[in-house]
């Protein structure tokens, strides 16, 4: 063949991030956090819940990089084990609403009619409902722990994805290629999956990045309120809550988990911004 053609790239292949340094920085930060969380037992030989009552509230040193808390637990160890809990719940608590909201938004936008009207009223109601009130109620019903947190965030979080996707579908379903697919007699499920979904999902992906930040904040806030993961499990929110009594003398105990939340949020925001720049061009 005389001409060489560029072989088409898959959807992920299209997402090239040339000259998008902050995006890579975000990826770097989050990857680092994930690696640290995953490799926690290899990095620290302390037990995150193991108490050492002879060495409480020790300042940072060679043995305890970030000191110990009021029960002599190694703060650094608790931070990296806490990352496991917070990142896992954070991602899980976004994945479920993402899937639920996207599916409902797709169906609602495509079919319209009474289903659409009903769903949108449910969305309105959900938005009007205060999140923490719902979360607290659920924790009492389900019992504290990751399940209750994920359930609470999912019950509230799906509405954003639903609205984003529905709005995009309303625009996309009037596009010629969707009309063409419809006219050529393809099954509806296939039109939704192959012709609509890949073309409307980018906004939801972008939103999910900032949504992870919000849900980690929610987990931490619930932890702070004592409604999160039950103690003594290491978790950033409960670490802040337990450590706040020592903020004047051993300031690092409550501050470091807070800084971790900020760093995680920063990394995810950079990824989100990078995606916006790439996909909304």
């Amino acid at each position, binding site marked *: 063949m005389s001409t060489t053609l*560029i072989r*088409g790239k898959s959807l992920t292949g299209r997402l090239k991030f040339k000259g998008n340094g902050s995006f890579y920085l975000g990826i770097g930060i989050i990857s680092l956090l994930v690696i640290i969380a995953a490799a926690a037992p290899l990095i620290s030989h302390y037990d995150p819940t193991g108490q050492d009552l002879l060495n409480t509230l020790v300042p940072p040193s060679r043995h305890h990089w970030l000191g110990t808390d009021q029960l002599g637990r190694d703060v650094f160890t608790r931070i990296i084990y806490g990352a496991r809990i917070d990142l896992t719940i954070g991602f899980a608590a976004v994945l479920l609403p993402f899937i639920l909201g996207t599916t409902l938004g797709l169906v609602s936008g495509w079919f319209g009619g009474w289903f659409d009207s009903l769903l949108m009223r449910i969305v309105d109601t959900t938005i009007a409902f205060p999140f923490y009130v719902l979360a607290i109620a659920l924790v009492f019903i389900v019992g504290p722990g990751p399940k209750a947190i994920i359930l609470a965030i999912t019950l509230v979080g799906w509405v954003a994805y639903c609205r984003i996707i529905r709005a995009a579908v309303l625009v996309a379903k009037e596009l010629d290629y969707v*009309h063409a*697919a419809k*006219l*050529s007699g*393809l099954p509806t499920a296939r039109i939704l999956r*192959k012709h609509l979904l890949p*073309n409307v999902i980018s906004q939801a992906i972008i939103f999910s990045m900032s949504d992870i930040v919000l849900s980690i904040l929610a987990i931490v806030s619930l932890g702070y309120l004592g409604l999160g993961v039950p103690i003594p499990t290491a978790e950033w929110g409960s670490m802040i809550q337990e450590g706040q009594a020592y903020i004047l003398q051993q300031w690092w105990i409550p501050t470091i988990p807070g800084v971790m939340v900020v760093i995680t949020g920063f990394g995810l925001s950079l990824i989100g911004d990078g995606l916006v720049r790439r996909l909304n061009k």
Partner: protein
Amino acid sequence: MSTPLLSVRDLHVEIQTSRGLLKAIRGISLDIDAGQSIGIVGESGSGKSITLKAILGLLPKNARITSGEILIEGVSLNSLSANKRAALLAEKIGIVFQDAIAALNPVMTVGRQIAEVPYRRLGWSKEKSHQRAIELMQLVGIPNAEERFHVYPHQLSGGLRQRVAIAIALSGNPQLIFCDEPTTALDVTIQAQVLRLLMDLRQKEKTGVVFVTHDLAVVNEICDEINVMYAGRFVERGGVQDCFQHPVHPYTYSLLKAAPDMEHQVERLFSILGEAPDLTKPVSGCPFAPRCFAATDICLTSEPTLQLVGSSTSACHHSGSFMQSLSALDVNEGGAGR
């Protein structure tokens, strides 16, 4: 007489707008036989695209068919369930849109888009569908079809995209292709290539074509029959040769006159003054009368219907005497030309 492939009987479409009810189509009848090629010509807002959309069931939410019947091979679409109707339309009709980039899915390779209908709807095997897609790509004149199978729409030029769109329209082996201004978005040389392709396809595949356009020259190239649309109705219909050489409706005449002509040098092009009528208001008299050079009192009071005039039909009170009057009247001086 055989049953026509597609038949439209006295179709009326209304659109709900913020200014009131707009009677976009006010009674259209049309018969298309297998392999026939017809053109629907009119200016913007005359209802030509809405006609196609109404037939295909693609009307926007605020528009609806108020009366009339659409039959495919004698089967009325009204009598079918939504699913059966969609299946029948999909089997018989393919469509090519004006804007090829909007008509292609940006995140799917062009080959897969062409192979999709054979694979999913006709139930062919993956290999056979793939092979068919490559055949179709070759048929519509896409060079290096094998390699281009794996290319995304944005990697192709405008002309090639329109060829891909035509290949997709052909992929379900339709008997009729609806072309909604398929060449308007292309530059003139590419336009000529695409038209030639459509003409070739008509001969090779024996596919009928319904061509909607505002470009008279395009219709002249590709169609057997022409339907001139004005204000939601056909005002003149007939063979292309007849209509172009002996127009029997003043609107057709004016349109032809308004087209630039290479043979005759004119200082200023003829233009049709005024605008198309507001169809939210009731039409009294001939809708073209306010812009017509031949209009008389009767044109303002009663709306003419299609009448046979020579070999064409025309909806004009003066069609009969129109041919004679044309020779007597220099239209450029007559009033509407200025």
